[in-house]
């Protein structure tokens, strides 16, 4: 059957392209915010914070575009699922960008203080989270629900590391009140990473919804 909605298909393709671009920006922000911490690079942390405005602006534009398509094209079935999912995905990505800003701000505060401990588990946690973000964007591009489900399952690995880091940092606090400030900042930072992984799971649920039309809980 011939395609008869060329303009509509083009609008959907542009929307999808915008979602992927936003995802790439957020992926970069997460990676650089962690590098700012590990390398004690304040300039990089400030860049991440400043660039979040671009993510927010793109988020606004994509929401407007999705709304315009819904208002003018009256999508149904897979088209409607696609637009609704993209709307939700960009919201999740915008929040991930905020978490990257949280990490960058934490890095700025920690970089001016003596390092509490060598960073081992936090970079491991960040590595898994970053790869989840990267791969979920691939699953979105390829509309691959099996891959999305597999990516969501790795949230458990992030949670295990998060709890390990939590226990360790609480131990530092109990050990010496002088550690409390740095440990608390690191706890918030770990929480940001953990939330990013949760949001990846939410996007994975959107990919499944796109296929099935059913809203699932993957966590």
């Amino acid at each position, binding site marked *: *059957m011939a395609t008869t*909605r060329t303009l509509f298909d083009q609008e959907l393709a542009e929307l999808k392209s915008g979602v992927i671009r936003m995802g790439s920006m957020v992926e970069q922000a997460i990676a650089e915010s962690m590098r700012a911490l590990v390398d004690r690079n304040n300039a990089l942390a400030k860049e991440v914070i400043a660039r979040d405005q671009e993510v927010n602006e793109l988020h606004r534009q994509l929401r407007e575009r999705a709304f315009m398509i819904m208002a003018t094209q009256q999508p*149904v*079935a897979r*088209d*409607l699922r696609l637009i609704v999912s993209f709307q939700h995905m960009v919201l999740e990505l915008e929040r991930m960008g905020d978490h990257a800003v949280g990490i960058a701000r934490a890095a700025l505060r920690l970089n001016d203080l003596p390092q509490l401990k060598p960073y081992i588990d936090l970079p491991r946690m960040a590595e898994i989270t970053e790869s989840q973000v990267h791969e979920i964007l691939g699953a979105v591009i*390829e*509309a691959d629900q099996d891959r999305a489900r597999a990516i969501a399952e790795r949230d458990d690995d992030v949670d295990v590391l998060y709890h390990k880091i939590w226990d360790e940092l609480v131990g530092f606090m109990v050990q010496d009140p002088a550690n409390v400030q740095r440990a608390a900042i690191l706890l918030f930072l770990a929480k940001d990473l953990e939330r990013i992984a949760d949001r990846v799971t939410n996007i994975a649920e959107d990919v499944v919804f796109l296929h*099935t039309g059913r809203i699932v809980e993957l966590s």
Partner: protein
Amino acid sequence: MMTWANMQADVAAPTTHEAEIEIKLDARHVNFFYGDFQALQDASLAVQARKITALIGPSGCGKTTFLRIFNRMHDLTPGTRATGEVLLDGHNVLSPDIDVINLRRQVGMLFQRANPFPKSIYDNVAYGPHILGWSKQQISEIVEESLKDTGLWEEVKDRLQRSALNLSGGQQQRLCLARALAVKPEVILMDEPASALDPIATLRIEELMQELKKRYTIVIVTHNMQQSARVSDFTAFMLMNERRAGEVIEFGPTDDIFNRPKDSRTEDYITGRFG
């Protein structure tokens, strides 16, 4: 590889408990011919009582033909022939010994364009009951009841003797519906009843349908897919096959047809990629 373009919903529709289902009209393997030309092939459809069932599909797919078989309107066209069964409460309406006049009382019809008689508003509604020999008192009561049921009473009660042709298009269509209701039908067939109406009049008809389905079984043919999605409980998608005969491609709850169609042809049609 799966892509956004070819992706299909792959989850089965939720099931309904069979005990809750009452089938009012059951079309089984219906074929229809205009002379040698087959317009409908092996069409089956189980229409639930007190639900709205919509027939959608591109022009020429046999929707209206199928609808008109349900009350034997095709008898009025010479050279036509229907095979198969259409059971109304278990009785085959295609049987030659069926009382067609009584059938059309049981299964009323509303057409694309309002077609009031060139008579007064009152006489339009009273026409059917009068033919059936009801008393003046009964007729007077049923006229008021039918006009109330269609939301027209308050608008016309002071001018019942005026010509129906002076009413607006939307009012004329509701008058025709009142005329159909006046003979106490069980099923109402609607052939694009709002296609000639403005959006406000269309919404009034749609709201009316929601009220009427509490008491009547409604089958509607519509080209307006949003209308089908808005008003119907069940939707059948029809399409011409390679021999240009209409077929039922997919039938199910409207929610499933518009959100998770199983057949790629249904998906292509409802998303506007058919042509």
